[in-house]
């Protein structure tokens, strides 16, 4: 699946990736790659602007963290982000059901 098809969903995927705990950008990309069994071929650089958008919207928070001489920006879900993830999950499920109904009917 290429980056274009994903573009509208990247933010949701990132919220999901952060659901199990705080992560820095590179680790998030790794997580997405593993979870999707390598199917998500996104321009990895797109993850950073998406994280910044999520932060601006109050859905994630971030802070610098120093580990092993390397400084990384670490992201976590805010309460609002967790709520939004729940809503978006439901919304996704309902969209998939709807599309399946239509595809199955034709």
């Amino acid at each position, binding site marked *: 699946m290429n980056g274009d098809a994903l573009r509208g969903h990247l933010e949701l995927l990132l919220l999901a990736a952060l659901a199990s705990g705080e992560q820095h950008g590179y680790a998030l990309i790794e997580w997405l790659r593993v979870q999707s069994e390598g199917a998500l071929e996104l321009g990895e650089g797109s993850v950073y602007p998406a994280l910044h958008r999520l932060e601006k919207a109050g859905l994630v928070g971030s802070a610098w963290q120093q580990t092993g001489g390397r400084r990384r920006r670490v992201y976590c879900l805010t309460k609002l982000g967790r709520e939004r993830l729940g809503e978006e999950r*439901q919304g996704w499920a*309902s969209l998939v059901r709807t599309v399946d109904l239509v595809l199955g009917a034709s």
Partner: protein
Amino acid sequence: MSASEAYLEELRRALPRRHRRRVVAEIRGHLADGIAAETASGADPEEAERLTIERLGPPERIAAQFGEGSARRPTGKAAALVAAGGVAALLSVFAVTASRHPTVGATTTARPVAAPGTMVYVHSVPSGYRAGQVAILGRVLVRVVNGTAVRAVYVHAKR
């Protein structure tokens, strides 16, 4: 200058001023992590650097995405239908307003406002659709009745 430094410099120049410091620092960390990971899995340092940069994509493309539309939920009548996590945008759908239900939106948790069979109006219908066909609009499933009118099958209220 190493390939990484050249990449970061290009990125710095392309970024809006207020994002430069943080984003360059962040991508610098990404490059270091990527190169370390590639080297650990057997690539020579030059190859590791090349692969990591390639996967990040062109610096201009990253920079262009800063200052672009936010993750905030859109508001307003038309925007409400285009909300839904970018799904609508992805499907390049068209704007809809409800004839008798100005609050029609596309959030998933609220009560339905328009019963099955309610008429709503589509401003434009994609060329592929004909009368009687079903169009998907964000999370709103509508049935096209004629060129401009649609029958709502599944419509939710904006909260």
